[in-house]
């Protein structure tokens, strides 16, 4: 939670700075280079993850159904938003949904990847929506875990959490879905984490 608040604080600080100050250099180009660095760091973090061995040992094909359910359910229902929000295409809405609560990476990726096709203005708007939507998802999954468990069963808090099932929401998942759910939640979080850049890039290019 502390990390999320720090990220939110930096975002708000950036907004406030943008309102009062102007810079001469191309900030868009700068963010592309920083994003490249982030992608390399995320890869390194994934490669040196010690949990991967345990994950490989306890791997069971049936457990894959949980992240598959998360992905399919999110895509189908995000697509519905495309019918309601006339400003955005179905694929734009799925791209926002496919952040799976990974608001930092998904919002920046969407802004960068959509700029060539829809222009800087619309891409920044969609990036803003992605940031807000994925922050909302994490907040709702965190605060609403007992209700999600009550209405949708033991696996739903894991699916609703998206990438947060492996870290920030693990404690609440353990509380409501039981300790047996922890390996599924960690595996779910790792797989969804890896899939975010792929799915966001895919739907941004459709």
């Amino acid at each position, binding site marked *: 939670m502390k990390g999320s608040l720090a990220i939110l604080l930096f975002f708000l600080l950036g907004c406030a700075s943008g309102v009062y100050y102007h810079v001469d250099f191309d900030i868009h180009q700068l963010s592309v280079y920083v994003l490249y660095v982030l992608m390399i760091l995320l890869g390194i973090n994934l490669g040196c993850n010690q949990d991967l061995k345990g994950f490989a040992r306890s791997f069971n094909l049936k457990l894959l159904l949980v992240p598959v359910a998360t992905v399919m359910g999110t895509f189908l229902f995000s697509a519905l938003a495309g019918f309601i929000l006339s400003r955005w295409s179905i694929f734009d809405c799925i791209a926002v949904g496919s952040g799976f609560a990974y608001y930092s990476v998904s919002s920046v990726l969407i802004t960068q990847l959509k700029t060539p096709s829809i222009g800087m203005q619309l891409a920044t708007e969609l990036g803003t929506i992605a940031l807000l939507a994925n922050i909302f*998802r994490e907040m709702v999954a965190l605060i609403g875990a007992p209700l999600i468990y009550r209405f949708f*069963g033991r696996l739903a808090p894991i699916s*609703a959490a998206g990438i947060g099932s492996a870290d920030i929401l693990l404690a609440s998942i353990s509380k409501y879905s039981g300790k047996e759910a922890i390996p599924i939640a960690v595996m779910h979080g790792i797989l969804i984490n890896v899939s975010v850049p792929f799915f966001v890039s895919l739907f941004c290019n459709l």
Partner: protein
Amino acid sequence: MFIFLFLMASGAVVGYRFRCVSKIHKVTSLIQVVICFLLFILGFSIGTNRLIMDNLKYFCEQAALIAGLSILGSSVAALLVYQLFFKKGGDYEG
């Protein structure tokens, strides 16, 4: 798209190769710093954009709709998977 995936895959190879080096695990803190910086830049570009700043409520409504539908969709799908494949055994091992 492929540049991002290629960079991530290259990073994963490097991370796996040096997984025994203790310093490489500090990359998590570095990721947090880079993400904060990126979010600052995103916030900055939003702050300079009058159109977005004047319509923030409008964007919040759209974001809430997509977030709500995403959570509902994944929860319904998880319920289906639980009912169809996990409930019989009464545990997660099936």
